[in-house]
């Protein structure tokens, strides 16, 4: 089932929680709605579910306008942030609950519940109460309950936020696997960019109710539409540098970063990712002020012009505080933004 969102708007008083959003999601894709808290991503999800009524705009599932269809008739599965499992019912009762609501016979419902429980790998816990399960298991029960009625769309609200760090990585892979196995159009909300990038087919980044960019993760990372997206994606964070362009030369303070750039003269914001630097004998000299070992990489703190700059190098490189290293920026990895923060080129 493909989904189309047209001019979707939700206003609370004078606040635009979601502002004229347009989005098209292809059948069977896994899409991450990403943004900081209060950006409108959960509101968008709840409008897709029908629990929240849009102020304006339309939502299509396939060719059908579902905007005014109540949640119970939308054929969706929704997994809540805190799972919302019925605490007094067993896992099996929780999963069969939606089926029995639809008048499925008990035996049939049990059979279907067992099938879906096998998919999410909780079939051995069918007789337990939710409180006797771990967070990850509860999560999978919630997914099973959402999927058992064979919905057209699966919606997940911050599915991993209640899990500890280790479980989060394992569970997000699980979600991806289940989604691929069931081949269901899935939308999930998250504030964690790494989570979004690692499992989504596409990511929609939102800020203050406005959709910033909708792209395949890799493309978005390399070609962020604006400074906000560039800043939001990637750890360690991208370096923000004030640059000046004169006769095609991009420089930060006295340091020349690039020659022959096709850019009008003037001052710009630029972004360079820490991993965009490479060690180069003929490069720029950086004095290492501070360093931090992260395991695979070594993160160096240096100065470039007026700004503090983070540079990632391989962890086997021998550097210590006060040393000077020489490095350059990879071709096409200087992102230059205009005064409205839009990306105008990569140099």
């Amino acid at each position, binding site marked *: 089932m493909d989904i189309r969102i047209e001019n979707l708007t939700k206003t609370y008083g004078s606040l635009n929680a979601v502002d004229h959003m347009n989005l098209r999601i292809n059948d069977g894709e896994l899409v991450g709605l990403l943004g900081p808290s209060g950006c409108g991503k959960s509101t968008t999800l709840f409008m897709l579910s029908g629990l929240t009524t849009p102020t304006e705009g339309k939502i299509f599932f396939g060719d059908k306008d579902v905007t005014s269809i109540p949640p*119970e008739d939308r054929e969706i599965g929704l997994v809540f942030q805190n799972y*919302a499992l019925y605490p007094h019912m067993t896992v099996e009762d929780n999963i069969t609950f939606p089926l029995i609501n639809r008048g499925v016979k008990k035996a049939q419902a049990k059979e279907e519940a067992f099938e879906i429980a096998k998919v999410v790998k909780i079939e051995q816990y069918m007789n337990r109460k939710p409180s006797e399960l771990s967070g990850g298991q509860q999560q999978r029960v919630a997914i099973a309950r959402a999927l058992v009625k064979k919905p057209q769309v699966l919606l997940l609200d911050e599915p991993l936020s209640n899990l500890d760090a280790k479980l989060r990585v394992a569970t997000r892979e699980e979600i991806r696997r289940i989604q691929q196995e069931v081949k269901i159009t899935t939308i999930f909300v998250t504030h964690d960019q790494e989570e979004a990038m690692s499992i989504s087919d596409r990511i929609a980044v939102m800020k203050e109710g406005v959709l910033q960019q909708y792209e395949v993760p890799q493309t978005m990372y390399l070609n962020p539409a604006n400074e906000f997206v560039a800043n939001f994606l990637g750890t360690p964070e991208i370096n923000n540098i004030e640059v000046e362009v004169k006769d095609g030369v991009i420089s930060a303070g006295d340091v020349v970063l690039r020659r022959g750039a096709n850019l009008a003269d003037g001052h710009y914001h630029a972004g360079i990712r820490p991993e965009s630097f490479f060690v180069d004998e003929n490069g720029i000299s950086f004095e290492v002020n501070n360093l931090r070992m992260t395991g695979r990489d070594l993160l160096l703190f240096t100065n470039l012009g007026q700004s503090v700059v983070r540079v990632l190098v391989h962890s086997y490189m021998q550097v210590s505080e006060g040393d000077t290293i020489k490095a350059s920026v990879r071709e096409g990895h200087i992102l230059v933004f205009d005064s409205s923060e839009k990306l105008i080129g990569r140099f």
Partner: protein
Amino acid sequence: MDKKSFKGYLYLLPSIIIMLAFTIYPLIRAIIMSFLGDYSIINHGYTSIGFENYKALFADPDFALSLRNTTIYVICVVPASIILSLIIAVLINSCTKTKAFFQTVYFLPYVTSVIAIGIVWRWMFNSNYGLINYFLGLFGIDPIPWLNRPEYAMPALIIFAIWKSMAFNILIFLAGLQTIPEDLYRAARIDSTPKLRVFTRITVPQLAPMIVYSSVIGMIGAFKVYNEVFSLFQGKAGPANKAMTIVYFIYDKFYNSYKYGVAAAGSVVLFIIILVMTQIQLRVTGEKKKK
């Protein structure tokens, strides 16, 4: 500061004195008295020691009647009040703008004097000019002599008691409803659960601890009912004392018949009944907590 000192008792002193004088001592004395016969000034001793009072108590037809009436009262008032309160609470909870208004109205009976409002009910139950018989008359029902005929005394008392007891139950259920996560209802909605099924499969099980609590509190209160009877029947236990309750029986024996021993025995029986109720409640709520 971990040093223990007796200073704490200084703070507790007023409460301890009151408690010893007006709770512990009378409790022990009531138990002892229930085993002693009348005090004879001539012999400077008690006429009997043992279970004489209890024998007299259980032989007394009024006590048997009071047990029967109290049981009927409990069986009728508690479930009816709980079911009605549950429905009203769920309906109030689903309102948004009018919620506070309804909550205020429905809680009103809780704060009012049973004596005063009992007198009003007495007026409403009046066979000739009462509002209730007037309404029944609109449906073609002949006037009922609510307060003058033994067979209608208990129904009148029960109607009054349900009216009075709903306030507390509604309040407790409303508070309980607040603690049910909204997401459970959203999930149920997404799962297209019929409204009745939401009520029976989510609301009621989630409210189970409050329902048990309200039932036990209601039962304890029902076993102690007195003011309602006094005000509705103008100081009597109904026509021909047919609405006799346990507490009314105890007071009557003690205040009017001066049978202290029998009254004490009656109060010990009441104490045991209430102790059992409280234990049941503690057992049930304790188990819930363990889970």
